[in-house]
């Protein structure tokens, strides 16, 4: 999944806002941003961080500088282990045309030592959005791992997978209360890129997104159910963050 193909596929599917959220990593974000230059697609710099409790949380920012500050924080809290490509797949960094730049040697699939609340507070302080990912999954999810949404955590919303509906998730997990829900493609491959989230905003920024997720100040967010595919199976999670160029919308 190289940057120009991500951009082309997103545009073909009518998507004009896309976040790149590799696992504990951000080295490929700039390449996708560059590949999208001059097109109708806005790329939000992001990451899917794995916290100490083995919870995946999406972190969305406006700028590469914010993301870089966050990456430094994550790096400090990752165990120093080398990736074993034979076991976990390759971790490639590419440029905007998809050309190989380098291999990331640090093992990225590990948990950081930050707690969920610490990580969310850092992202929030940097001006980003913290969104616990795929809460309806049986692994690496806020609900599976911690049972309940911790009180007072600065989350912007909770993300659900494309294999369910907001109504179903609210029935299944009444403990999520009235937290806003977002649904994403969680695309690990090109054919999984999908854009169910329809946003009305003044500009494609994190501040606007924060308002839209709460449906306030004239901004809004709603989920189209007609673009959701259902070809995924629990357990098919690819280990390598870069093996297939993990990215998601």
């Amino acid at each position, binding site marked *: 999944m190289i940057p120009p193909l991500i951009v082309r596929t997103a545009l073909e599917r009518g998507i004009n806002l896309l976040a790149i959220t590799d696992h504990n990593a951000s080295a490929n974000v700039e390449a996708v941003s560059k590949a999208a230059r001059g097109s109708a697609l806005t790329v939000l710099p992001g990451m899917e961080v794995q916290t100490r*409790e083995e919870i995946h949380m999406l972190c969305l920012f406006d700028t590469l500088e914010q993301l870089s500050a966050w990456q430094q924080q994550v790096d400090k809290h990752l165990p120093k282990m080398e990736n074993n490509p034979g076991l976990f797949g390759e971790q490639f960094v590419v440029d905007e045309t998809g050309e190989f730049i380098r291999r990331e040697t640090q093992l990225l699939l590990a948990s950081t030592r930050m*707690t*969920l609340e610490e990580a969310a507070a850092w992202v929030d302080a940097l001006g980003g959005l913290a969104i616990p990912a795929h809460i309806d999954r049986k692994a690496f999810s806020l*609900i*599976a*791992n*911690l*049972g*309940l949404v*911790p009180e007072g955590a600065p989350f912007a919303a909770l993300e659900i997978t494309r294999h369910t509906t907001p109504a179903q998730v609210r029935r299944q997990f009444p403990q999520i209360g009235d937290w806003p829900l977002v649904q994403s493609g969680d695309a690990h491959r090109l054919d999984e890129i999908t854009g169910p989230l329809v946003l009305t905003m003044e500009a494609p920024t994190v501040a606007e997104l924060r308002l839209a997720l709460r449906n306030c100040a004239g901004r809004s967010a709603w989920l189209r159910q007609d673009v959701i595919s259902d070809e995924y199976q629990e357990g098919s999670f690819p280990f390598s963050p870069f093996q297939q160029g993990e990215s998601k919308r």
Partner: protein
Amino acid sequence: MTLQEIVAELNLMCLTNPCDFSAIEVKSGYASDLLSCVMAGARHHGVWITLQSHSNVVAVAALLELSAVIITEGARPSQDAIDKANEERVNLFLTDKSTFWVVGKLWEMGVRDS
């Protein structure tokens, strides 16, 4: 088996305000670090062994009225979590040993219902 006997035999450190552990009978146990599984699978009044130290551990223990939570591998919870446990009257214990070791010991002592 009383909680007092378990605390003594496993040399557990009590993180919360101690009560009369000899009056608490423990028959069953459950081990998992996924709180959703604990909510679905642990028996009321049992003991729960986990290396998860998030404050939600206290909420789940209170919900199930567990006799005790044994947090393993020295994963000390935050002071906020300990304060919440005192409020909710949840008995929190800490050990440097692994979950495997604690469960093995409890099994040896005759705590075998799950």
